[in-house]
Structure formats: structure tokens, C-alpha cells
């Protein structure tokens, strides 16, 4: 069988088609959100949301079993969406109120989220094993319904993240200036938090809640080794996200290895290799005067101002 035949076989499996589509969308969307999170120094926010989402999964499961739904986990994804959005808004409110108490509050949410999930799943008549697929991903079990959720949410996240990138950049880069410009800072911060929550829930099926954050952050870490601008960082991170997601998934088609972990390990390997080679890969800057617009003679500010305005150097100096 030639390599081409193998590719054709891979692409003709409906299961693989669904998994690939989900992986591409999640791989593209997660780093877009991750770029804003890194800029806001909230790289761990995805992790926090992921932990809280586990409680949502279990809660959805519990409600499903009360309502006698079949299968029991019908409401797991909606439950995760609700818990993640609520959790992300709480995290954002904590951040807004200052950092000192925020650290502790976040830690409480991390642990509460996991413990709550484990407890609730037991109450729902399930076992911890039921949670494993959410914690570590189960892309091979993506159903058509899941896929539509993923497509819808990923398109929403990409549209908002890319369409409002200048405004989201503005509040993330300099919140004080954004306020002094009358921008709806709070609304935009909540928007970043909410699209982060939505991304966590769609990435849950691909890499699992415990590894969601890696897919949001590691491609950004790779991209900013090379990109000069915020826009380029976002674009490059998104491309890296798609490439490692496809590569990881395709590897698992031939090797019996877990796709979520494979994708994340691939991303980290790419980071390690590029970070090591980066000094060689980056175009060397042409040699030039690093301060071409500085006066070469040392001129002390006090020398000028102490003598009054008359001796002020001409502004063209």
C-alpha cells in the first residue's frame, strides 16, 4: 500500500473526518484566545476554567440521569459550557479587583472544580472512569452533534477574537489608556474571558480539560520567538496550533497512542527545538547605530532647565 493510499484511506473514514475537522478548528481557535491571555498575563486562566468545567460536566451528567436522558452524558457538554463561562467571569472579576487575593481565589477554584466534578459524578451514578475522557480528551468519539457544537463555537470564537482583535489588544495592552478612551473595558475583558471559556469546552474533546491550556499557550510561546508584532504572533500561533493538531491526530491513526497527549507533546517538542535553534534561524539585524536619533554628547537635563527657559536648546536639536 502506497503512502497515498494510506492518506486516502485515512481521509475516507467518517470518524477520522470528524476528528480532523474538530482538531483543525480547535487548533486554530485556541491559540487566538491564548494570545490575549498571555498578553494579559493570565496564561493559567485556561487551566482554571478547565478545572471548573469538570464540575460542569459532572453536573450535566447528574441532571441527565435525573431526567432519564439516554445517553446519560447528553448534557455533559452544555454543562461544561455553563460552568466554564460562569467560572471565567468569576476569575475575571477576581482579577479586576486586584491580584493579592486573586491568587488564592483562583487556587480555590482549581481544586474545587476537580473535587466537585469527582463528587458529583459519583452522585450521578457514574465513576471516575467516566471523567477520564473529559480530562484527557476523546477525539475518536466525536459524534456529529458534538461536531456541530464544535464548529459553531469555534467559528464564534474566531470571529470575535479576530474581528475585535484591535479592541481586545487595546484593553489587554494598556487598560488605563483604554479606560481613558472611553472603551467598554469591562465588557471587553468579560468577552476575552467568555471566549476563553468557550474554547476550553470545545477543546475538551480534542485534548482534554487538563491539557486545554497547553493548546492555547504553547503555540503562542512558539510564535513569539519569531513574530515581531501582536498580529503576526496570533496568526503564526494559530498556524502552529493547526499543524500540531493535525500531525498529532494523524500519528494516532497508525500508532495506538492517545491523541490529546500526543498533540501537546508535539507542541512542546516544537517549542524546545525552535527555542534552541532560534538564534540561528532569526535573520540577523543589520549593524547600525542603535541610537541614531540621540545626541552623541552627554547633555544633562538639569543643565538646561536650571538656567531658565532662554537657554533651552532649539527643539530641532
Amino acid at each position, binding site marked *: 500500500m502506497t503512502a497515498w493510499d494510506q492518506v486516502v484511506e485515512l481521509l475516507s473514514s467518517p470518524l477520522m473526518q470528524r476528528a480532523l475537522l474538530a482538531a483543525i478548528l480547535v487548533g486554530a481557535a485556541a491559540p487566538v484566545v491564548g494570545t490575549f491571555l498571555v498578553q494579559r498575563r493570565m496564561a493559567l486562566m485556561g487551566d482554571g476554567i478547565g478545572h471548573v468545567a469538570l464540575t460542569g460536566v459532572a453536573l450535566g451528567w447528574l441532571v441527565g440521569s435525573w431526567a432519564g436522558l439516554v445517553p446519560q452524558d447528553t448534557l455533559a457538554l452544555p454543562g461544561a459550557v455553563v460552568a466554564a463561562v460562569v467560572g471565567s467571569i468569576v476569575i475575571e472579576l477576581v482579577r479586576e479587583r486586584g491580584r493579592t487575593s486573586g491568587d488564592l481565589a483562583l487556587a480555590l477554584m482549581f481544586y474545587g472544580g476537580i473535587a466537585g466534578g469527582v463528587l458529583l459524578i459519583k452522585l450521578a451514578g457514574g465513576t471516575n472512569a467516566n471523567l477520564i475522557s473529559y480530562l484527557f480528551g476523546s477525539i475518536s468519539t466525536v459524534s456529529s452533534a458534538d461536531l456541530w457544537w464544535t464548529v459553531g463555537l469555534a467559528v464564534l470564537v474566531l470571529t470575535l477574537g479576530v474581528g475585535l482583535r484591535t479592541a481586545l489588544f487595546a484593553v489587554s495592552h494598556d487598560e488605563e489608556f483604554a479606560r481613558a478612551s472611553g472603551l467598554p473595558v469591562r465588557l471587553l475583558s468579560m468577552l476575552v474571558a467568555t471566549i476563553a471559556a468557550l474554547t476550553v469546552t470545545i477543546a475538551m474533546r480534542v485534548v482534554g480539560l487538563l491539557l486545554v491550556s497547553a493548546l492555547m499557550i504553547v503555540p503562542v510561546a512558539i510564535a513569539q520567538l519569531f513574530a515581531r508584532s501582536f498580529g503576526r504572533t496570533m496568526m503564526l500561533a494559530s498556524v502552529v496550533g493547526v499543524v500540531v493538531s493535525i500531525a498529532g491526530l494523524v500519528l494516532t491513526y497508525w500508532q495506538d497512542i492517545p491523541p490529546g497527549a500526543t498533540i501537546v507533546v508535539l507542541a512542546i517538542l516544537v517549542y524546545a527545538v525552535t527555542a534552541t535553534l532560534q538564534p540561528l534561524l532569526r535573520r540577523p539585524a543589520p549593524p547600525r547605530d542603535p541610537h541614531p536619533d540621540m545626541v552623541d554628547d552627554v547633555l544633562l537635563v538639569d543643565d538646561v*532647565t536650571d538656567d531658565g527657559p532662554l537657554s533651552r536648546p532649539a527643539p530641532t536639536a
Partner: protein
Amino acid sequence: MSTPVIEATGLGVTLGGQPILDGIDLSVPAGEVLALLGANGSGKSTLVRTLLGVVPRTSGEVRLFGAPLGPSAPWHRIGYVPQRLPAAAGVPATAYEVVSSGLLHGRTLRPPRGHRRRALAALDDVGLGDRAFQRVQEMSGGQQQRVLIARALVRDPDLLVLDEPTSGIDIPTQATFVDTVSRLHDAGTTVVVILHELGPFAPLIDRAVVLRHGRVAHDGAPPRARDEHAGEWHDHTHAHPDPEPPRTGPSLSVEVNP
């Protein structure tokens, strides 16, 4: 009489349980260049931040161009230059991207038509045209300051607010600031500038407001440049330590140009 550009009455601000500003009344007419003076910690930055809605006020009223603070204020007419760029985050940003963010204000959440040309022109104006696509994180303090002016000027403001534009800044950048302010002043722009000492700005200043412990201690003609160092609000920035000023006599002495 036309509406004042800034109209604040009975402004009070409490931060961290401490009263920072108290009973501030300030009215700035159109076209004026107002210097805001005062010792370190007297509340100058807090005052301009409150006027622009960055810091919430505990009491009082603020009107900008006659409109109360809020979504309906004419944000496109206001340019703010903070003291410095916030500490660099992990993600790189170019000067062009930072200046472009100045084109957003109020409910304008996407850059308007022709934003690229406007951002590049604003960078050209501050002498950074050739560095537009350089990371701001890699620029010197003076260059970063100029990026911040370009970000404020890119929206063609009618009110420019500058927070200590000259402290710790290289001479060419100081010159850029003075140049910019005098050009804007000639064009009728209202300017509020926080200064440590009048320095090279002295010839441009129409009026000075001096804050002390969060209250207005003086409002009127700017202190005479030659005797500037005699003013009690003046903070020395020399290398030698400050002698403690005597706490006797009148609490304020202002010398006014004839």
C-alpha cells in the same frame, strides 16, 4: 461664554481607604495650556485619571466638553499620554499596533477607514516613522514615550492630557513634547500637562494649578521661571539630597510675573 473643555466640581477620590483628592474644583477653558504642579504624591496623576474616568470618584461631577463622563462623552476629542507604557507583557507589539489602538474610543471598537495611513502619519510626526514596525518593548524609554504621544495624537484630539512628559526623558524627546504642545496650542488645542518643574514648557504655560495633599493650593498665573526653585511645591531632582523645607511662615507664596 463657550462650554469649558474640562469642568470638575467638588471632586473627591478615596483610594485604598485613604482620601487622595478632596474638594477639587477645576474649569479649563478651550485653548488654554494648563500646568498641573505639585510634589510627588500630591495627587496630580490621580486627578487627571479621575477627570478621564480611569479612577472612580467618590464625590463630585466631571464634564468633558459639556458631557458627563460615560459612553456618551466625546472620547474622540480627548488624547491621553500616561506617564509610561505598562510593563511589557509576553506578546510583542509594534509601535504601529500601539498607535493604532489609539484610533479606538467610546463605542468605536474597530479601526476606522484609513487607519493605517493615520497611524503611520502620527508616528512620522514624532520622528518614529522608520521604526513603526519595531517592537515597542525593544525601544528606549524616550522612544516609547514618543509612541505614547503618537497614540494620543492619532485621533486629532481637541484636549491633550500629558502626565509628566519630561521627567527622566532624553533631551530630543523633551523637545518633541514641547514642539508638539506648542504646535497644538497654536492650532487651538486645549492642553493639560502635569509637570515636575516648568522647565522647557515655561513659555507655553497660560495658567498653573498647584496641588498639595490632594487639594488645590494655587490656581492662577504660572510661577516665575527664574524663581521656580523657590516655590514650595517644587521638587528638586538634583543628585544631592533635599533639605527639609522650613515649615514656618505663610503656607504658600506665589510669585507672579508682572
